[in-house]
Each structure stands twice: as structure tokens, then as C-alpha cells.
């Protein structure tokens, strides 16, 4: 399967390329303010929570190693997981792509509802995998209503919006906007918001609690993602804060869990690493309020019908790339987003993918095909803060540069004529690989600089693709005497 075949329905939402999408976001002052506040807050909390663990680096090392072991022997662990879950009374399904997964879910929901059910409904725990495959839209098309139950996902769903952060999907919304969304839209989906709803977060959370409680008590099918799945025992983990996860995992009769194949870990014991890494990196807490672990079906407690869907949807393409495959180690903590200077200014929507931020910039081009998301690997200053923050030590800058090379190669292969950028790079390489030519260029540059500029040796405006740079920055005019000229005059000829 080559890189570019049949990636439809995968991950990529097809927004404009990053630079254009970012321009829109940058102009939104409210968004900028919300983002700055949020990322600054979480950054501080994360540093406190990780800083107090004396063996934090060893934990990161172990987390990375467990993920490396899993990736290199993924088939073994997936088959083991399948056997464990089946032995524990669950049913395992395999989905090659989004279409496949969505069909399986729709079929299971209809079967669970029974033949005489008129309205099919499901409650959902926040799950990036189901966003990635567009499950809610696919279910709607099949006549099934999906209710998101995570507070932020509810805000996003009611606001007909898209999530913009892995951990805090409505990070781009402030309390006033949320109050408005609840007041206007809740009634269309179920219990309306109280008439006197204020924008106090407590009141907003209470409105969500009342709105969703009825759904939890009556809905027969729940859909979840999975944070981890232990191959040896068949135990699945969902890590959450609000209790909506517990509601979905406990009350309905049928539970359908959609899990990317990379989420498997070898053993139950391995969870001891990730249950330390994830909450501290993600919310900056020592432990999140609720973590649920379940194994198949437990008679008399929770759903008696449990289905696990193992989803590929491009993950095996990522696995194929020996440099890029480390991105599959991601535990979706979002630490990389919160430290990223780019994300902090643009927010998540600019990335045009359910996976925003630095991890999105390396995951999306691999899942969707690098041609399709060619601008994303370039949406980074390569500052390296993400790598430092990543609890499983994904070297995001390394993958970014690797994918940039792939994007350039893809452009080379697909065209009769080189791009202007490629021509410029070629020319620059020729000059830079020849001290003689470099000296000529320096003299020409000094002359050109004087033409372009610059009172006080400053060039105010540059031509062509450099115009964006010079719109906000002065550029020093090349001095008459380069260093090598000075050296020759003052050291070699002394």
C-alpha cells in the first residue's frame, strides 16, 4: 500500500494549509487570550506534578521502552489481547479502516437496541479514536444519535464546533461563550439549561450534570475509547476526571470500545508506569479522579455485552516508518501542546486534524499521507520543548525533520518542474558548498543590500517569499567586509 492510496475518511479534515489556517486563528484575540491562559496554567501544574517524582526520568525511560517493545512485537500482543478479552467474555472485532469500524459499531448498536427500538441512542466517553474515524457522523447517517458526555465534548457538540485540544477540547471557549451555548442548545438535545444559568463554572458543570444524568440512566449502549489495554489479562483502562466515563462503562447493557491497535501494552503490571506518567503529564495531577479497569464481562456488574474493536486506520503505515513509528507511543497526554510556542498562539483548529499540536504535526501526516498534510511538519520552530515534555520520550523534532524530507521528496516525485523553493534551495546549496561562490555572493549581497536598504544598514523590505519575514522584521544589510575577507586581510596577510 503506497502512501497516498485510499486515505479517505482518515484523520484529515481538509482545512487550508497550516499557514493560512493559523492566520485566521492568530487574529482571534479572545482565542489568543484563552489559549495563553490555559497553556500557561497547565504548564505550571505539570512541572509541579512531574518535579516531585524523584525517579521521573526513569519512569519516562520505562514508558518509552514498553512502547518500543510493544511496537516491535505488536502482532503478538494483539493476538494475546484478543485471546484474553475473549476468554473474559468479551467479543473482539478488527477494523482495517474508519469505514470498517463505523459499520461494525452501527451494526452492534442496532443489534443491542433490539428489533422494536425506534430511536437508537448511544452515550459516549471522550475518545479521540472515534473522532478520528468520524463515528458520530457515521452513526447519525445510520439513524443513531450519539451523545458526548465529557463536559468539554458536550460544549463542542452543542456548539457544532470541533475540539481544539487533546485534553481540554473546548480550551478555545471561555465561560461566557459556554453559558450561551448551553442556554441556547441544551434543550434541543434533552433537558434544557435552567433559565437563570450563570457563567459560573460550577453552575455550568451542574447544568451539564442535570442534562446528562437522564441519558446515563436510560441509554442502553455506550461507546468508549481506551487509554491502555493489557495483553496478558485483557484488562482495559479508561482514565478520566468527571465520572462520565464510569457512567458509560457501568450503567448501559452494551459497551463498545474502539481502540487504536497501538494502545495495547504487554502486561497488567506495565500499567504501573503509565498510570503515573499520564495524569502528571496531562492534567498535572498526582492522579486523575477516576480510572476504571475492566476485563471482559463481570456477571452482575456493568455491561453484560462487551465489544472491543481494534482499529488500524493508517496505524500500520506509521508503524512501517522506522523513524516515524515512535509517534505510536503517544498516550495522548497533551503535554507537548501545552509547551509548544506554535500551538499556544494558533490553537488546535489550525492543524486541521483531530490530533493538534506537535504530536498532531507528526501523527496526522503519517496517518493521512504526507502529501495531504504537507504543511504540518513545517508548523514548528523545532524548539524541542515537546520532546522534553513527552512522558514517553517521543522525539518529535526528529520526526518533524524526517517528515519534512518526505514532504520535499513527495513534491520532487510528483512534478516535472522543481518548485521555486526547491530551485532556491538548490542554488543556495551550490553557493554554500563553494567558498569561492560564497565570497562572490557575499560581495553581491553587500551591493544588493545597499540597493535594497537600508538606512543604518537595515533592510526594511525583502522581495518574493521573504516578504512575510520582512513585514515585521528589519534585516541587517550584508556588510562590505565578510569575515573571510577580514581574515584574509588581518591574519593571513599580516
Amino acid at each position, binding site marked *: 500500500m503506497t502512501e497516498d492510496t485510499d486515505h479517505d475518511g482518515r484523520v484529515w479534515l481538509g482545512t487550508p494549509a497550516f499557514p493560512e489556517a493559523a492566520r485566521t486563528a492568530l487574529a482571534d484575540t479572545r482565542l489568543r487570550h484563552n489559549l495563553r491562559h490555559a497553556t500557561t496554567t497547565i504548564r505550571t501544574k505539570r512541572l509541579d506534578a512531574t518535579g516531585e517524582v524523584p525517579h521521573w526520568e*526513569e519512569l519516562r525511560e520505562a514508558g518509552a521502552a514498553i512502547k518500543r517493545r510493544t511496537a*516491535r512485537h*505488536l502482532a503478538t500482543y494483539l493476538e494475546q489481547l484478543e485471546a484474553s478479552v475473549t476468554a473474559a467474555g468479551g467479543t473482539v472485532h478488527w477494523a482495517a479502516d474508519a469505514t470498517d469500524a463505523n459499520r461494525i459499531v452501527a451494526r452492534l448498536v442496532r443489534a443491542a437496541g433490539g428489533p422494536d427500538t425506534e430511536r437508537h441512542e448511544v452515550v459516549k466517553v471522550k475518545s479521540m479514536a472515534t473522532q478520528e474515524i468520524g463515528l458520530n457522523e457515521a452513526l447519525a447517517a445510520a439513524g443513531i444519535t450519539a451523545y458526548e458526555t465529557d463536559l468539554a465534548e458536550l460544549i463542542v457538540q452543542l456548539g457544532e464546533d470541533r475540539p481544539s485540544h487533546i485534553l481540554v477540547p473546548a480550551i478555545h471557549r471561555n465561560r461566557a461563550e459556554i453559558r450561551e451555548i448551553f442556554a441556547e442548545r441544551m434543550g434541543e438535545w434533552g433537558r434544557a439549561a435552567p433559565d437563570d444559568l450563570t457563567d459560573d463554572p460550577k453552575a455550568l458543570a451542574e447544568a451539564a450534570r442535570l442534562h446528562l444524568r437522564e441519558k446515563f440512566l436510560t441509554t442502553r449502549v455506550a461507546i468508549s475509547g481506551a487509554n491502555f489495554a493489557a495483553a496478558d489479562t485483557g484488562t482495559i483502562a479508561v482514565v478520566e476526571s468527571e*465520572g*462520565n466515563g464510569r457512567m458509560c462503562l457501568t450503567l448501559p447493557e452494551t459497551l463498545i470500545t474502539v481502540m487504536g491497535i497501538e494502545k495495547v501494552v504487554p502486561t497488567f503490571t506495565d500499567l504501573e508506569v503509565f*498510570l503515573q506518567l499520564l495524569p502528571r503529564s496531562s492534567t498535572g495531577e498526582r*492522579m486523575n479522579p477516576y480510572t*476504571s479497569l475492566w*476485563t471482559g464481562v463481570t456477571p452482575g456488574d456493568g455491561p453484560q455485552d462487551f465489544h472491543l474493536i481494534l482499529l488500524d486506520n493508517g496505524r500500520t503505515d506509521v*508503524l512501517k516508518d522506522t523513524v516515524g513509528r515512535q509517534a505510536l507511543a503517544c498516550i495522548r497526554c497533551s503535554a507537548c501542546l501545552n509547551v509548544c510556542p506554535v500551538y499556544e498562539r494558533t490553537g488546535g483548529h489550525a492543524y486541521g486534524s483531530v490530533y493538534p499540536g506537535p504530536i498532531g504535526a507528526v501523527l496526522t501526516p503519517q496517518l493521512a499521507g504526507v502529501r495531504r498534510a504537507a504543511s504540518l511538519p513545517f508548523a514548528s520552530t523545532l524548539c524541542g520543548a515537546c520532546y522534553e515534555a513527552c512522558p514517553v520520550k517521543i522525539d518529535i523534532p526528529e520526526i518533524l525533520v524526517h517528515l519534512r524530507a518526505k514532504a520535499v521528496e513527495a513534491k520532487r516525485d510528483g512534478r516535472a518542474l522543481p518548485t521555486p523553493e526547491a530551485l532556491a534551495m538548490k542554488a543556495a546549496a551550490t553557493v554554500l558548498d563553494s567558498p569561492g561562490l560564497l565570497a562572490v555572493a557575499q560581495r553581491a549581497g553587500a551591493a544588493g543590500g545597499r540597493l535594497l536598504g537600508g538606512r543604518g544598514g537595515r533592510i526594511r523590505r525583502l522581495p518574493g517569499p521573504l516578504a512575510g519575514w520582512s513585514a515585521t522584521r528589519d534585516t541587517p544589510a550584508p556588510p562590505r567586509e565578510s569575515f573571510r575577507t577580514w581574515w584574509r586581510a588581518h591574519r593571513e596577510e599580516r
Partner: protein
Amino acid sequence: MRSGGTDGGAGEDRPATDSRSAVLARVRTAVSDVPSDETPDDVPVPRTYRRTVAPGDTVGLFAARVADYRATVVRCAPEDVAGTVAALLERRGARRVVVPEGFPPEFLTRTDADLVGDRPPLSVRRLASVDGTLTTATVAVAETGTIVLDTGPGQGRRALSLLPDYHLCVVRAEQIVPDVPEALARLEPHRPLTFISGPSATSDIELQRVEGVHGPRTLDVVLVVADTSGANP
């Protein structure tokens, strides 16, 4: 519904066996760079993180860490549990509370709240309408202030500690372990496990933490310590 095979309901499904073999084949192809004789154990996993220095005062640490989540911790001697439980229920105005099978009856001798059993299992509506739930725990983690329930005696099924608005959990000092690895080592993987660290919470709105979303709004922990020389936190 055990096979995962197609049920013919949606004719356009690709046969499940196809997807299974297709995904597994792709996985194997993708890692063709891995030597065929390499075993998982050949990929080293350094476990040097297992060096948690056991805190001197595990009980004190646990109490402090639970309190950090804005839950209430009350220490008491074994003979004072019943009185403490009664006082807490009174303080929270919990008149009707669910008591799971196997909850120590001696803890209930002082309260005059209505005690509701879960046999036969209560309906979800009934459960959602009571004021609170009493449970014990199976293990607790000092470093993170976490309580783990495994549906064993005194804990009941998972919904009991979820639907009512108030959860009172009795933890014995000897159940507290220093850290997460130690806790997992003591757990039985095949039981449903719920890790609870404070009341339910969200920070989804402007990152301002709000306690009490879908799970209980209030968590009280009664910490039973044989020697209660330490003051209440």
C-alpha cells in the same frame, strides 16, 4: 455474538476474518525490520523506577494527599468508626444511604440514617435517588491519595459509589501502600477496578477546577488507625 463474525444485518460489511487477517498481516509487514528471532524480552525495559522511597509516615502522607483533592479525611481508632460514620452522615445530611453486602455491621451501630441494601440489586433510578453510599476499599495509595475499589465485600458493584451524590469510604491504615506499583501488585486484574482520587472534577471551563460533575460531589474518607496519636489533618 461471540464470534465477531458478520451477522448479515449490514450486507456491505467485509467479513470479519478478512479484516483480522488484513490488519495482522499489515502489522507483520510493517515491522519487517525487526529480526525474526527477536523476542519481546529482547527489547529491554529498565525498571529502575521501582525505587520509591517508602515515606516514613504512609498514613499521614495518604491523608494529606487525599485532602489535596478537597476530600475530607477523618482519622479514628477502630472503636470510634461507628461514631465517626454517624457524625459524618449527620453532617452531610445523608438520610438514606446504600450499604453494600459485607460492609462491617459494627460500623453502623451509631447512625440513625435509613440503610438500604443492594439485594436484589437496586434500580439505577432508586440508586440515583438515595443520598449516599458507604463502602470499604481494597487498597489505597499514599503517594497519590488514591482509593481503589474492586467490588469485593463491603464495596458492592461499581454503580453504588457512582450514582449517589455522596460517598463515604472507610479505609484501614494497613490497606495503604506507598505507591502505584505496589497497589497494582496487590490487585486482582480480573475484577472491575475503580481508582478514586478525590471527588469527581472537571477543569474544562477556563481550567478552573469544579468538584462534582457526574460522579459524587463529596468524598469523605474515614481512616481507621489503631494508634491515633496523630492529630486529624
